[in-house]
């Protein structure tokens, strides 16, 4: 808690010093910060509530169970779908991905899941919509899904290929 206050405190002090040296910039800086603050504070509680609801109603075990037995190209899309539902930073998803690996889930599915978790989560997309507009958000969403599918399949092939080469060498 203490550490949480130090860095914002330092940032604030730097800002105050800068603004007292350059008083002509005060208005621009304060207006900009204030506008962004208002925009943020109007959506943040809603985003947090959605994230809280997802985390309680869609437990991790359920996600792992569903993805563990998915197969084929359907697994990749299911991975993207499941990845976009829950929430939290990406490193929370690594243990889940590890559990999926042990369960024998498809690598393409795990990659799709991790990538969707990283950059197209639903609450996150809403913040993107708010700040960058519908065209930007929609274009990035569609492109990301396309490339994540390609990446998932590519990594799966690469890992299978290198595993095969290793077993051949051992023979």
């Amino acid at each position, binding site marked *: 808690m203490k550490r949480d*206050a130090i*860095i*914002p405190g330092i*940032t604030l002090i730097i*800002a105050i010093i800068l603004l007292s040296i350059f008083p002509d*910039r005060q208005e*621009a*800086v304060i207006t*900009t*910060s*204030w506008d*962004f603050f208002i*925009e*943020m504070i*109007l*959506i*943040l*509680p*809603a*985003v*947090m*509530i*959605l*994230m*809280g*609801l997802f*985390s*309680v*109603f869609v437990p991790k075990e359920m996600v792992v169970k569903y993805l563990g037995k998915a197969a084929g190209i359907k697994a990749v899309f299911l991975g993207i779908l499941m990845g976009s539902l829950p929430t939290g*930073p*990406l490193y929370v998803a*690594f243990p889940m991905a*590890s559990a999926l*690996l042990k369960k024998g889930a498809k*690598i393409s599915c*795990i*990659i799709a899941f991790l*990538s969707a978790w*990283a*950059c197209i989560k639903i609450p*996150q997309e*809403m*913040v*993107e*919509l*708010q*700040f*960058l507009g519908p*065209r*930007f958000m929609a*274009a*990035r969403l569609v*492109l*990301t899904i396309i*490339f994540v599918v390609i*990446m998932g399949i590519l*990594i799966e092939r*690469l*890992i299978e290929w*290198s595993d095969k080469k290793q077993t051949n060498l051992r023979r």
Partner: protein
Amino acid sequence: MNTTAILNIFAFGCLIFAFIKDRTKTKQALTVALKSFFHILPTVLIIIIFIGLLLGFVPQSQISEVVGEQAGFRGVLIVALLGAFLHIPSLISFPLAASLLKSGASVTSVAVFITTLTMIGVVTLPLEIKELGKKMALLRNGISFVIAIIIGIVMGVIL
């Protein structure tokens, strides 16, 4: 109707629906929400002050020189690396991206920045290697870097 209103109505609707379905779980969800709100608040404040200083002090011509249209591929590469190394919550990357876009950054660099920031974590790479193995972790981060740049370039062309 604007995005803020839609988002708030949607969240409120979900909350009511959840409350009808399961009261205890909904209360639990609200506790999680409150905790994460206060957890993210300091970072939000830092980024907001940073955005104010950035737009107030750095002239637009300078921003667009580094990450704008004329910066070319070198600019895109710089943003991509910056996104890969920085470790800030993805939610907060959007106001930052919006402020850069407003002050002369190109659509390509902003899209690349968001994508590498969210998909690639140099800071969390050791953890990822531990959980998923070297091969998979390095392939995922490496290929994500390439597709981030491709996504950015395509977005620059279509938007």
